[in-house]
């Protein structure tokens, strides 16, 4: 039985990081009795351990709540949780596109912050009705009046009716639910048009295949129909439709316009149900897909190797499984002289890379070594051909290169005006080209730069945060390829080229970077039995060098009354330690040394 459309509210929750998004979501589940109290674990919607730990939402999640409002009517509230990082901006935008409104949480002591603003603008772009909520009023430092005034002034939202709550203690949560019902419009929905449903997420399930999360915009979708993905053209027979509940899914006979739900159709990989694609029904096809689809392509590449070569097969299996659920992840086998057999993996950005790496290590218990990330470069050769490389190992002999191109981005940084200087310094250091600056309010700016992608994949976001005390937010889009004076840096340890440490960089930065790499390696490679020269070179020319001095003393002198076992244990311990090292020719390099080079940032 379809409910009346005017009783449906589709909304998401947006907030600056740590302002209490997941906690409020949990409280809404609890208040609507969507989940029994005993089933509550902290932050139910963040399903992955990693999400709970890092306090960021990586995947979008959705849940259908039933709410009996003060007016005596029962409403259907569809809450769509959104990812919280610039790497996943596209996914956020698709989640927002599935809603009519957004609950904006602002911390009662911190007030408006960078992501408050950025997320609000993103929501406004999608014409969402915004319901402000002042959270954390239980804190001693809470100043709800001041913060409410700030929201009114900076964002221009009326906060006179804004609920003042504590998601932690549960105070005034009903007001949030009432505000959603009163202020967020019901969907405009026509069941009689040819069906169109927006995919805002898809999740692989080993029993049902891919579970496709959709917002039906028009028409009806039911089991037995043949669905078509309008962008990829893939077709499947629908097996089941239903609603997402907090703990178990609830199958239904059909999904109709305005509703949020899921579809299963024995789909094998999430690549066939891409976020942003439009589902229609072959028997009554829509003419045009919903706007806004784009195929998400990996932008950042790096080599991922098992620390123990014997784990290669396990790594492949793990990547295969992760890819089932992550259409943006790509991988193909590659071989490194230094690291052995591994995979070249493609990611949306550095956070995506870190998340995949952590999941491989934690959920699949793999020890990994990852190489320095790279973007895709276009190399034009003297013979007129062009090659694309995402792996410095494939960089051709400089004598054959006519010129190179690297990807540029259009980047917007939102920040309080006082940090403009710091931000511009950072962007200049990163070879940015200033475009313009807009004052959003008298003390908030939108700074527009063109930045090379390879300058932002390392630690740009972290540097930005630290230079603006966390107040700036950042968004970027790949714009075009531009001609650039690039060189390849090679690292040699004890005279042996370490292919896994090679990378491509702009010529102007090669020298200072080389020095930093050499220093970092020196600091992170433990002294060994003999001296180890570290060299960083362009072509055959060494431009930086350091030396790891030989270890001076490593001896266990005394024999404790014939206690040989104690010696043996020490030896075993030392051997264990060696196993965690990578052997490059004659040199042992701990994984941390790779990481240290990988994480080289402005502060080093």
């Amino acid at each position: 039985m379809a409910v009346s459309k005017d009783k449906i509210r589709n909304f998401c929750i947006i907030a600056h990081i740590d302002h209490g998004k997941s906690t409020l979501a949990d409280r809404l589940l609890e208040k609507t009795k969507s989940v029994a109290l005993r089933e509550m674990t902290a932050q139910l919607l963040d399903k992955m351990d990693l999400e709970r730990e890092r306090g960021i939402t990586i995947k979008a999640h959705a849940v259908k709540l039933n709410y009996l409002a003060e007016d005596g009517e029962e409403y259907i509230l569809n809450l769509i949780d959104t990812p919280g990082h610039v790497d996943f901006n596209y996914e956020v935008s698709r989640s927002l596109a599935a809603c009519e409104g957004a609950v904006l949480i602002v911390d009662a002591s911190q007030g408006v912050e960078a992501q408050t603003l950025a997320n609000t603008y993103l929501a406004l772009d999608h014409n969402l009705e915004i319901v402000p909520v002042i959270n954390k009023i239980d804190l001693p430092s809470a100043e709800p009046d001041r913060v409410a005034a700030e929201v009114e002034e900076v964002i221009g939202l009326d906060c006179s009716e804004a609920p003042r709550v504590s998601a932690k203690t549960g105070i005034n949560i009903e007001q949030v639910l009432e505000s959603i019902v009163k202020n967020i419009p019901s969907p405009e929905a026509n069941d009689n048009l040819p069906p169109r449903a927006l995919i805002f997420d898809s999740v692989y399930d080993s029993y049902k295949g891919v579970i496709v999360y959709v917002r039906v915009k028009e028409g009806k979708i039911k089991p037995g129909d043949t669905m078509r993905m309008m962008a990829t053209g893939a077709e499947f027979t629908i097996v089941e439709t239903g609603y997402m509940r907090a703990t178990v899914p609830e199958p239904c006979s059909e999904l109709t316009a305005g509703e949020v739900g899921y579809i299963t159709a024995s789909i094998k990989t999430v690549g066939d149900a891409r976020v942003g694609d439009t589902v229609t029904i072959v028997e009554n096809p829509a003419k045009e897909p919903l706007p806004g689809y784009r195929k998400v392509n990996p932008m950042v590449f790096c080599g991922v190797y098992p620390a123990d070569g014997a784990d290669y097969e396990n790594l492949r299996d793990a990547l295969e499984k992760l890819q089932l659920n992550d259409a943006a992840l790509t991988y193909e086998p590659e071989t490194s002289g230094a690291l052995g057999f591994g995979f070249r993996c493609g990611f949306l950005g550095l956070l995506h890379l870190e998340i995949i790496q952590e999941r491989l290590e934690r959920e699949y218990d793999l020890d990994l070594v990852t190489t320095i990330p790279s973007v895709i470069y276009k190399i034009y050769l003297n013979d007129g051909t062009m090659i694309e490389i995402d792996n410095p190992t494939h960089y051709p002999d400089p004598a054959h290169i006519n010129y190179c191109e690297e990807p540029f981005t259009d980047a917007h940084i939102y920040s309080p005006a006082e940090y403009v200087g710091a931000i511009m310094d950072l962007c200049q250091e990163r070879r940015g080209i200033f475009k313009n600056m807009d004052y959003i309010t008298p003390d908030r700016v939108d700074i527009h730069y063109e930045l090379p992608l390879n300058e932002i994949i390392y630690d740009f976001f972290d540097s930005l945060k630290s230079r603006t005390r966390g107040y700036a937010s950042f968004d970027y889009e790949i714009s075009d390829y531009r001609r650039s004076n690039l060189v390849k840096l090679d690292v040699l340890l004890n005279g042996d080229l370490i292919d896994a440490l090679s990378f491509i960089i702009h010529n102007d930065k090669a020298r200072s970077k080389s020095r930093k790499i050499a220093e970092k390696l020196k600091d992170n490679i433990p002294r060994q039995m003999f001296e180890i020269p570290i060299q960083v070179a362009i072509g055959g020319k060494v431009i930086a060098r350091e030396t790891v001095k030989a270890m001076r003393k490593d001896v266990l002198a005394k024999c404790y009354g014939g206690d040989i076992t104690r010696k043996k244990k020490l030896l075993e311990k030392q051997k264990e330690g060696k196993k965690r090292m990578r052997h490059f020719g004659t040199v042992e390099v701990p994984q941390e040394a790779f990481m240290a080079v990988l994480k080289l940032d402005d502060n080093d």
Partner: protein
Amino acid sequence: MTMINSNPIGLYLHIPFCNGKCPYCDFYSVAPQKGVTDSYVAALCKKIDEENRIYDTVYFGGGTPSLIGADNISLILSHVQTTENCEITLECNPSDTGGINSVFDFVKVAESGVNRISLGLQSAVDTERKALGRRGGCDDVERAIARARAAGITNISLDLMLGIPNQTKESLLESVEFCRKSGATHVSAYILKIEEGTFFHKKRDTLTLPDDDETGELYLEAARALEESGFIQYEISNFAKEGYESRHNLKYWRCEEYLGIGAAAHSFANGKRFYYERSIADFIAETPPIDDGAGGDEEEFIMLALRLTEGLNFARFESLFGKSVPDGIVEKAKFLRDHGLVTVDSEKISLTKQGFLLSNSVICSLLEIY
């Protein structure tokens, strides 16, 4: 008795009593109490009788073995069956045995068989000795040596410590010179290691210790100066006049068997390693020793052999294990030879002095194949 038991082995006797605790020491020791000492000695004798074996080396270690007195040592030795040329070593505290008023009876211990003593000199520089918490001065050491000699004990070993607070190359040479002049036959030169649970460990931030580089220099300097004085290095920390190597300690490094009796004593006998709990009460109560697994496998044999200048002997390895030393080890050794850490010839692999200084890494690297 069985055949095995008729083979003489080594005997280590742990005497866990000390008048004071040196700040660097983590050996098991407690203050002596009259009744406890007697019960402990009785328990030692009983255990020795039970074992009923023949020994070709005996070593009284501690603690301070000299502290229980010549009568007790004589009593214990009356229970020990020895071979004719048995080496019997007694660790002695210089101030207890060489102090002006000390009455330690060297004649009695010599008569009961002791033919070697080991004295904890540590340093011939009195300020350094003080910093190590040693009571008494160098004159105590000199007197102890003279008294032992007078009693007929001429095989005398001195302990030196390297890398101790405020030690310099010059002060170290003074200590080596003391060893040379004293007429000692053997010197053990240990690098100070700050062990957890010691007073030094607690105070480690306030100690002016030579750093690793300096300590390395001190070690090489000590080895050079000792050899110049006629003490030839035969183990990482041990130097001896020709023919005066410690036969007991060589058993440890050559993977030969020895029985350890007493609290905290370790054994390697009948292919097994085991040890007694660090508890006098447990030992007196005849609590059985704790199993420490099998001993004497290839890896262990190599690890120990490489501590000796005689090194890993290919023929000996083959006769023990019925196969030749794995190629991987020889290959690795050749690589390390290029860095001056080991020597390899047709008979053996052995560590150089530089190699000894890095022996943990070198041995670990050679044993990587296991």
